[in-house]
């Protein structure tokens, strides 16, 4: 397993990139810890797959260096980097048995057959496919095939990192849970360095210790799920993470208070640094209370999604989503109150630090 250093990496698909716009991936400069579980999260076209392909060696970056454990691997081929990868659609060798699929990478590397047998059996146990060893791989279900793809990586003791490219796309919801928790356990038990690309926030947040949120070729924030939820650095992170996303509304700041239309909201810290530009207040639906106190609102829609309700309220022209618990009632004259610890202030979409 390896620490991964991304040294000023940039990438453009076209030749002679001039402005920032020509880069599919703008400057990325980070260090990822050995044994860490990272998720690259963002909408399609944000550059997350480009970054993954740079790590796996399928793309040579236009600028910058990639280091594994301090060693420059930028010019090494995919084979030489010793990584494992699980793709969106299961890649298996149809004509082989499950056992032979797992043995394949070891046989290619000339590992002695006794050693292969030991490693393959061990891996089959790990991915819960021991009883399928003798079966032809093509008859298996999508989730089993995906486990074989993973197993071909796990079977090698020398892999630097395991990369995942939206691996659960073709898996049914119930199996997603099972696969995800198995993945989590494998990580907790064996400490692989894992990088997981997805557009699905639940997958990213539940899988990773650190989530890398990307937007328009840039990393907007790297943080623990908790940080991304509580303190989104950019309104995009607020919107992209959480279901529904963060409520963002234009406000005026004055004397420790935020003014929304004709209403005043108390800010958590009165000593808010004054920032120029477009000022917005962000608060997640989880931190908005619906009750008899606060600012009066109109209710536009109530979506009962079982474990809680999403109430869409209107405050003048501003829509504010509120999450209300399963057994909780919606008052006849609804008011919203903002929990101070959930309030974030943004200037030109970036969070004002030192709040």
């Amino acid at each position, binding site marked *: 397993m390896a620490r991964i250093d991304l040294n000023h990496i940039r990438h453009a698909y076209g030749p002679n990139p001039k402005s920032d716009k020509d880069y599919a991936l703008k400057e990325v400069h980070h260090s990822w810890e050995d044994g860490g579980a990272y998720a690259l999260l963002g909408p399609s076209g944000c550059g997350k797959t480009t970054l993954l392909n740079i790590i*796996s060696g*399928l793309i040579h970056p236009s600028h910058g260096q990639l280091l594994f454990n301090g060693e420059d691997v930028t010019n090494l*081929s*995919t*084979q030489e980097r010793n*990584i*494992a*990868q699980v*793709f*969106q*659609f299961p*890649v298996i*060798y*149809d*004509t*082989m048995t499950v056992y032979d699929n797992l043995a*394949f*990478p070891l046989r*290619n*590397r000339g590992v002695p057959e006794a050693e292969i047998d030991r490693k393959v059996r061990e891996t089959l146990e790990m991915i819960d496919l021991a009883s399928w060893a003798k079966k032809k791989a*093509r008859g298996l279900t999508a989730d089993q095939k995906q486990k074989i*793809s993973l197993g*071909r*990586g796990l079977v090698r003791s020398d892999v630097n990192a395991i990369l995942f490219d939206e691996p659960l796309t073709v898996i049914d919801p119930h199996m997603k849970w099972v696969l995800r928790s198995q993945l989590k356990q494998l990580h907790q038990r064996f400490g692989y360095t894992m990088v997981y690309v997805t557009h699905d926030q639940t997958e990213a947040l539940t899988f990773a210790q650190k989530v890398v949120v990307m937007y328009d070729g840039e990393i907007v924030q790297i943080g623990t799920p908790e940080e991304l939820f509580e303190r989104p650095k950019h309104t995009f992170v607020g919107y992209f993470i959480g279901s529904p996303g963060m409520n963002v509304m234009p406000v005026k700041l004055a004397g420790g208070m935020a003014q929304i239309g004709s209403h005043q909201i108390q800010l958590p810290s009165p000593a808010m640094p004054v920032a120029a530009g477009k000022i917005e207040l962000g608060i997640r639906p989880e931190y908005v209370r619906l009750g008899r106190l606060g600012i009066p609102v109109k209710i536009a829609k109530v979506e009962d999604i079982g474990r809680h309700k999403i109430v869409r309220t209107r405050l003048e022209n501003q829509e504010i989503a509120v999450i209300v618990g399963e057994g909780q009632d919606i008052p006849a004259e609804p008011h919203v109150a903002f929990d101070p610890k959930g309030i974030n202030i943004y200037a030109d979409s970036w969070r004002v630090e030192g709040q």
Partner: protein
Amino acid sequence: MEKTWNNKAWFMVLPVLLLVAFSAVIPLMTVVNYSVQDTFGNNQFFWAGTEWFEEILHSERFHAALGRNLVFSFIILAIEVPLGIVIALNMPRKGWGVPVCLVLMALPLLIPWNVVGTIWQVFGRVDIGLLGYTLAKLGINYNYVQNPMHAWFTVIIMDIWHWTSLVVLLCYAGLVSIPDAFYQAAKIDGASRWAVFRYIQLPKMNRVLLIAVLLRFMDSFMIYTEPFVVTGGGPGNSTTFLSIDLVKVAVGQFDLGPAAAMSIIYFLIILLLSWVFYTIMTNYDAER
């Protein structure tokens, strides 16, 4: 995909059925009719029963021609299929090279059979043909008009030149349908070039390969025009394939009865072999 219920479809295929009836079924029946009768012209026919069939099946001339056909089909399959795969594997997958290669590959397929024959007939001539002249200059005594080996060599090279493209195009279609992820995974697994071919490309090409083999087999088994134009079946009978022999019997000797019986046997052999291929292919599909 399943069909919806109604019988309208029959009206749609009726014109085709009529056409097939006139173009295939009626002539075929005529042939059957001839094959069981004897005639001396003048529209006088005598019942011959299975006599012609027995005669043909016991005729050494027929055995020899059938043998030549099988050897020919075997040789060209053994060369064209591997060669086609190798070429398809080496064709570019993207960029400007793709259309160029595809057009180059399609060119031989667009040339009419008799023209192909004529081209090679001239190409191989020792006096004016590029190939024949060059070989002669190199001191090789090449003469397809007199030497049976040279005649075979010419006919086989001609068929390979003409038809390998078909195998290439089919294999190429199979290859481009393999997602990139498979190649990437193979790289990551450290697979050799051979392993990629054996475990990814070949299994994915299996179906198109079966179609290619079937088409090339049927076609080569029915070969007529090219050897007819180049060698006329000679020297001697060395390149007289079943079809050429059939024409010799029917038109040259005007033995309608034996010719009819022969064409029916010929037809049945092709039908049988096609059925065998079809069964193999459908079994393969069922297994998937």
